[in-house]
Structures are given as C-alpha cells and as structure tokens.
C-alpha cells in the first residue's frame, strides 16, 4: 500500500531524514517511535506532501507521490491527524464531520442546497458512532474535552475514507487511563475500517501492546525495525533510549 | 407639496407605535421645535476634514445674512432658520444630506456650499426635487455653462472658472509684455478643477500675448503635504513665470516650501487662489510682488457696503471673510430680495423667476452683482488681479478687467465648447 524508499530531507544544515526505506503492507498497524527530535513528524510531513524530500520515493497505491501537493495526496486517500488536535473550533462535531464528508464527496462547491445534505448524513452518523461521540454530536468542537478533540481530529481524517491513516501521537497530553481508552479506539477503528494505519507514539507500553510492527527512528535514520519482541531486545534501541528516556528501560524491565 | 405631506406624516408618526417609530421619527425634534412660519434654508457643505474652513466660513456668511434679516423683523413676518449639514466632502453623502434637508427638515431653499463633485451631486438632487438652489462654492464652468446642466430653479452665485481665466489671462499677458516673461510653467493640483483652471488660464494668456511659451506643467496631488519635488523640478526648468491653481492649505505649504528655495526671487508667480485672507494670514513669510487673483479683500472694492460686510463678518467669525464667505453672503442676498418680491412665498419657480436677472448691492456696493438670466450664473463681481505686500491688507494695486471683454470672450468660449 505504502512504501518509502531512500527518503532524504535536509533543512539547511540539519539532516532531518536520512535515507529512510520502510514498507507498510496493506492493512497493517505500524508504530513509529524514537526519542525527541528523531524526525518522526518530519517523516509524516514528507509522506503526506507537506514537505518535499530532497531525494527518495514515496510509493502510494502504486504511484510515486513525491512532488504532489498535500491536497493531492489527501485526495488519493492518505489522511492524517495531528499531535495537537487540529479541529474547527466554532463548528459542532456533526457540522465539522459532515463538512468533511462533503469535501470527500467532492460536493464542497454546492451552492444550491442546504447544508445538512442527505447523502452525507449516514456516513457522518456512522463516524460519530464509531468515535463514541454521539452524545456530544451537537457540542461545539472547542468545548470538547482534550481527549474528545483528539478523537474528533481522527474522525475528521476518517471522514475522508482514507486508505492510509497517519496518526501523530494520538495519546499526546492524556492521562494513563485515557491513553488506553484512546488507543483501544484506534485499534478498533483499524479493525473495522481495514485501513493501513501508521502512528507515532511515545508510550512504549501502548506501542508494544498494539503495533504489528515497529520502526525506530533516531537522528532521522532508521535505527531498528521489527515486532514488539524484537524491538524490546534490540540493544541499539535500549541504548538510544536510556540516555533520553528512562521510560523504555522501565518497560523493558517489566517485560 | 412638501408642507402638506409633512403635516400628515407627523400626525401618523405620533400615532404610530412600535419598532417603526424610531425610524419614522427622523428629524422630528427639529420640526417640533420650529414654527410653521419659519423659512428654512438648507446648507449642505463640508464641515470636516482638510477643507472644513470652506464650510465653516460659508456658514458664518449665510448665518450672518439671515440673522441680519431676522433682526430686522424678517420678511412679511416670516423669520429664517439656517440648517447646515456636513457632507464630509463625499458626493454621495452630499446628495443624501441635501435630500434629507429638503424632505426631512423641510428646507424651502438650498444654498449649496459643496465644492466641485459634491455640487454636481447636489445639482442632480435639486433638479429632481424642483427646489430653489444656489451653488455658492463650485467654480467649475460647466456646472452652469453646459446647457445640459441647466435647470430653471438652480443658480450659481460663485465665481466661474472661465471669467477668472479671461481676467487672469489678460492681466498675465500685460505683465508678460512689460517684463518680457516668455517661458512659463504651471504647478497645479491634479484634479479636474486644477487642470481645467490651468488650461483655461493659459489659453487666454496666449490669446492676449501669443509669445508665451509653456515649458513644463507639474501636477502635484490634491492635498499633498509636501511639494519639494515640484519645487526643485521648477528650479531645474527655470521658467520666468509660474502659474498655479493651488489653493487653501496646499497653497500655504507650497509658498512656504518655495520660500526655502528662494524660488520667487527670480520667478514671477501668478496664483489663482492666493488672494484669500485666511491663506494670506496663514503664510508666515509672504513674499512681496506675487500676482494673485482677487478672492476677497476688505479694501477692494472700496465701498461702505464692503466695509460693513467685513466688519459684521469678523464679529461672528474668527477670521476675515473668505471667497466662499462673500459668495454665500451674496447668494443669501439674492434669496432675501426674491422673497421680498414674492412677499415670503417660497414657491421655487416664483423665486427663480425673481432671481433671474436680479442685481444685488450687497456685499460690494457699486453697480452690484447680477444673476445673468441666460445661464443662471453671476457676473459683474470683482475679478481683479493684484500684487502681494508683506502686511495687511496683503494684496494691493488691484487691476480690474472690463466685464464687457470677459463676457465677449466667454461667448466665444461657449461656442467653441458647443455650449451655445
């Protein structure tokens, strides 16, 4: 479905992404991890068309999408949710999702009809149901709790019926219980929708629990890749994390 | 017509309740306070922004004229009330406030104190509503000279560009001949009045003295704060004489900034707008010997009427009369005299019939100013040119131009323009 080959990106003197090659099979759930500044978000920005790589290929659904604008990439079927929820503060949950469904249906230019359009209704309700936000459907986005805003952000991405979904730290800024609830939902969505999902995550417990495959980035390069068990035992990874993040060592210890 | 509908609507307003009351109550306080016998004079003019003095000095004059009549007991027992309204110099606003003055405040007569484009907007309104109107500040010739603009109830009581051009041209030609001024340049504000005024001046200067050659024409923006680039350009071109249609605050700045370069030491200066007391007194270092058209002067024409006008004016205003002041004062005299003749009847066609061809003595005395019957514009007003001196009365040695000569050339000009 998605395959990255020899991706390279420099910002002036900073070499943010170094020769990264990863395959993401169709329908997989993959985690991208790495210490702060490892270039995880840059990696997302490169494949979603926000930045243009200096070299390398991004093969999506059989075609190289390097050089396509983020808009074109979205329309091909790759959407993303953000580390800090990117939502539409003054719209209600229903309005925001329905407007996005309309965008997906390519009906954004419709002047002659009224807003809640019939053909978008079922899909909107389905997504809200899936997110578990039914009781907050009429709430303004900016009045949602932090966790619900993150959910809505993901819901907006889902409204585009993506083949590939990029999630940048879906659990950022949440308490421990909320994290598990959130990631449970992500896993559920993945199972229901049968999408290819990539997510960036800091919480190792979560990563090891749900990811089918894990890729570790450090200084923009792939440090290690494999299943949870392989990564857990990888000495490079342990070394990389010990300096910066003791959480991993705790996680390793527990396991 | 307006009278009866006004009465009805007022009663209905009083009865009408609810939300519409606010909208419909327009101007009601004014009407309520006024007596039915009062004759209302509407004065749309510019009271804010850079040319506010145009409006304020006009208003002083109109108020002065009608207060004098009120003190003398009014006309046929009817007194006058002047209602002024600021258009902020916006033509659409001028049209709107004029309609308001007529329809809402119940003004019987409009004295239009708008400049250039505003006066054309007012013109359309009064033509539409058939109210008596006297334009008092617009000097644009076409306002009355163009027969398409003619309306039987509308007059101009203001100097007209073409009259000034003939007078200025003949005066300039005379000086040019005496002093051998052949190389001329102009420096006028870049808008219709500035361009027309300058072109007409040059046209007649050349008629009277064909050897005049125009070496350069500069067009600084209207209301530009700084004229340095025009002044230094003039210094490069080195003309023997400069004509300028600059006026008001722009002219004050131009003269003072030119002084810094000593521009007038070697260059004769002819100004269409300098001879106005507030300008002459605002300039701190008024150079001697600048040539200027008459705008107003308390010593010219020398007559008891003029002195009386000036004395009365400075009692109510903080400065001497402006050009706009005498024009408005004269316009008021036309209105007053017409009302005298109709015994206070404010019907616009009756008044218009009286004003056509009327001559008023105030404010200049002598033979008086005449409202020409054929095109509803005044003649026989002072169109002299004089020279500046550094202290009061600021301009002396006025040289008159024969009105017969002006009228004759004006006729030819009209033919040329296709107006007659």
């Amino acid at each position, binding site marked *: 479905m998605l395959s990255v080959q020899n991706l390279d990106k420099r910002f002036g003197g900073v070499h943010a992404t170094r020769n990264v090659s990863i395959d993401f099979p169709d329908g997989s759930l993959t985690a991208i991890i790495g210490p702060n500044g490892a270039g995880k978000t840059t990696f997302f920005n490169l494949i979603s068309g926000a930045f243009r790589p200096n070299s390398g290929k991004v093969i999506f659904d059989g075609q190289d999408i390097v050089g396509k604008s983020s808009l074109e990439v979205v329309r091909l079927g790759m959407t993303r949710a953000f580390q800090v929820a990117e939502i539409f503060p003054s719209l209600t949950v229903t309005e925001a999702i329905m407007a996005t469904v309309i965008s997906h249906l390519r009906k954004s230019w419709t002047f002659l009809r009224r807003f809640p359009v019939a053909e978008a209704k079922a899909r909107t309700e389905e997504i809200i149901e899936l997110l578990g936000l039914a009781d907050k459907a009429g709430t303004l986005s900016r009045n949602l709790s932090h966790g619900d805003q993150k959910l809505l952000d993901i819901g907006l991405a889902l409204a585009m019926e993506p083949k590939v979904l990029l999630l940048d730290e879906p659990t950022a800024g949440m308490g421990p219980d909320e994290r598990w609830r959130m990631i449970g939902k992500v896993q559920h969505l993945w199972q229901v929708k049968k999408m290819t999902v990539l997510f960036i995550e800091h919480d190792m417990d979560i990563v090891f629990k749900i990811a089918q495959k894990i890729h570790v980035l450090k200084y923009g390069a792939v440090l290690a890749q494999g299943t949870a068990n392989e990564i857990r035992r990888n000495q490079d990874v342990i070394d990389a994390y010990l300096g910066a993040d003791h959480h991993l060592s705790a996680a390793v210890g527990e396991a | 017509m307006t009278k009866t509908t006004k009465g009805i609507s007022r009663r209905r307003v009083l009865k009408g309740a609810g939300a519409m009351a606010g909208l419909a109550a327009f101007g009601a306080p004014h009407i309520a306070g006024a007596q039915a016998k009062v004759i209302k004079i509407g004065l749309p003019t510019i009271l804010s922004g850079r040319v506010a003095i145009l409006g304020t000095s006009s208003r002083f004059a109109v108020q002065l004229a009608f207060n004098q009549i009120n003190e003398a007991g009014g006309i046929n027992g009817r007194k006058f009330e002047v209602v002024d309204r600021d258009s902020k110099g916006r033509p659409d606003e001028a049209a709107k406030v004029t309609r308001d003055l007529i329809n809402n405040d119940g003004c019987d007569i409009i004295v239009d104190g708008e400049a250039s484009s505003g006066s054309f907007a007012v013109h359309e309104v009064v033509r539409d509503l058939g109210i008596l109107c006297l334009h008092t500040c617009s000097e644009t010739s076409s306002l009355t000279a163009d027969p398409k603009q003619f309306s039987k109830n509308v007059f101009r009581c203001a100097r007209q560009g073409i009259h000034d051009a003939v007078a200025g041209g003949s005066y300039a030609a005379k000086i040019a001949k005496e002093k051998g001024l052949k190389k001329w340049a102009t420096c006028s504000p870049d808008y219709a009045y500035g361009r027309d005024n300058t072109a007409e001046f040059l046209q007649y200067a050349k008629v009277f003295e064909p050897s005049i050659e125009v070496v350069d024409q*500069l067009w600084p923006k209207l209301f530009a704060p700084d004229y340095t680039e025009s002044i230094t350009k003039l210094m490069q071109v080195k003309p023997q004489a400069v004509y300028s249609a600059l006026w008001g605050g722009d002219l004050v700045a131009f003269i003072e900034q030119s002084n*810094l370069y000593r521009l007038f030491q070697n260059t004769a200066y002819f100004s269409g707008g300098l001879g106005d007391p*507030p300008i002459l007194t605002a300039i701190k270092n008024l150079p001697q010997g600048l040539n200027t058209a008459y705008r107003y002067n308390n010593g010219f024409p020398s007559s008891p009427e003029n002195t009386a006008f000036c004395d009365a004016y400075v009692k109510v205003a903080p400065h001497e009369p402006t050009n706009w002041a005498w024009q408005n004062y004269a316009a008021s005299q036309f209105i007053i005299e017409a009302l005298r003749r109709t015994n206070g009847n404010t019907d616009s066609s009756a008044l218009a019939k009286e004003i056509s061809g009327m001559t008023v003595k105030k404010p200049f005395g002598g033979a008086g100013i005449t409202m020409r019957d054929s095109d509803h514009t005044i003649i026989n007003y002072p169109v002299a040119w004089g020279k500046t001196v550094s202290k009061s009365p600021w301009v002396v040695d006025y040289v008159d131009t024969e009105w017969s000569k002006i009228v004759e050339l004006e006729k030819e000009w009209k033919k040329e323009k296709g107006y007659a």
Partner: protein
Amino acid sequence: MNLEALASCLSSSACAVTQISTALIIGMLLFMVASGLSLIFGVLGVINFAHGAFYMAGAYIAFFTYQATSSFLLAFLAGALGAGLIGVIFERFIISKVYGKDILMQLLVCYAIILIFDDLVKIIAGPEYKMMGMPDVFALPPLEFAGGFVPAYYVFMIVASLLIGAMLWLAIEKTRIGKIIRALAINPQMVGALGINTTLLYAAVFGVGSMLAGIAGSLAAPTRTLTPGMGLSILIESFIVTVIGGMGSIVGALIAALLIGFTRAFGAIGFPLFVDGIMFGMMAVVLIVKPSGLLGREIAR
C-alpha cells in the same frame, strides 16, 4: 514619460544634487513616521492605523509651543514628548484592551481615535490652515552643494532624522533594554517569566513609536500646513513604506522610505504620470514575492 530629461538631470551635478536632496527630504520624514509604525507592529503586533493622528498631534503641539515660546527647540521637544505621552495614554487605556483580539478590533479602535483627534483639533485650533513659520535660525539662503541647492532647514531635518534613526537602531540592537524588547517581540511570555514588567515595556514601546510620529510632525510643522485631517495624508505612504520595508524592521523602513523618496524625486523629472502606479506596484510586487517585506520576518501571531 521623459527619460531624456532624467538622463540629463543625472548627468548634471546641480540637478542631481538637488533631486537627491529632495529624495532625502521626502524619504527621511517618511522614515520617521514609518519607523514608529514599524516598531509598534514589530513588538506589539498592532497595526496602528491611528499613527497619522500622533503625527498631527506632534505638529499641533509644536505649533502652539512655538507660538508661546518662539523657541524651535522647545517646540520640537514638546511635539515629540507630547505625542509620545498621548501614545502611552492611548496604549494603556485603549489599545491594550484589544491586544490579541482580531485585527478588526484594533482597526476599529484606531479609526475611532482618528475621528476623535480630528474633531478635537478642530475644536481646539479651529479649521483654519496653520503654519508655524520658519524659525529665525534657519532663515538663511539655501546652501549650495556642487551647484545644487538645499535649504538649511532641510539639511537640519535630514541630519536630525538620521541621528534619531541611528539612535533608535543602536538602542534596539546594542543595549540590554533593546535585547529585552526584541525578545518581547518573539516571546512575551518568556520575558514576563523573567520578572520583567512587560506591561510597562509595551507602553514604553508604544510611546516611543508615537514619539517618532510626533518628531515627524514637529519636523514638518515649519514647512507643512497644519489642518485637521492632515494625518491622513501621510498614512497611506507610510503604510506603503512599512509594507515594502517589512513590518517590524527599522532598517527596512529606512530603505523603503528612501526608495519612495527617490521614486518621487526622480519620477517628477522622468515619469511624473507613473509615480503613483510605481509605488503601488512596488508594494504589490513585494507582497506577492515576499509578503513579510524586504527585511521583515514572518509574523508569529
């Protein structure tokens, strides 16, 4: 269009000197106004549409002081400090209430101030034209440089503006307080966290910005006509300067002001009809190519 005249002017030293000095005269006064605008925007993120009102205030205060004391020095100081003081008051009681609000609120507040100031001036000084007149010190014949003439007062004006601009630049780039102000522009929370009174600093910066407008006003008072509404006439040009130079950049304002000055001074000789079009054109091109201006940085807010 008369490029021949332009070429011949450039080849004659008298003409070139006079026109270059003209460019400087126009440019430096514009620089004084625009640098204040730019400073306020750079640090406070506020587009001060009422800047012209402070220019007018400075000019009128200088005018009245000169009438009372006949001292140009006093008039100049009073104009500058008076405008600065009004600026501080305006900042404290009015504009600070709309910091961080959308730009329309700021626009509206400034519009209100313009309306109020114009009417206040009309009430206090009347609608008549006022002219301060040239102080005796400068009542000299124009100075001659290589055949070109520059009036003594304008020499003073150019030098004074340059000095003030240089002082401003040094204060911002080389002093401790300047460093704090630059930090304030980028990260006000951090500056506040360091225990520095940001409220006071904001007021001070706004005061200095208004003072620059007041300086321009009092420098202009001896040669320009004072009327209500005079602030409007310089507003658009100083906006063009700030946009071209880059909002927040003092040096950018200087470069852009001189650019406008030279365009006008030499445009008057070579292409008088196109001067306006060229000025708007430059602004449009800069906005399209580099929206933040020649030397500006992208706004963070």
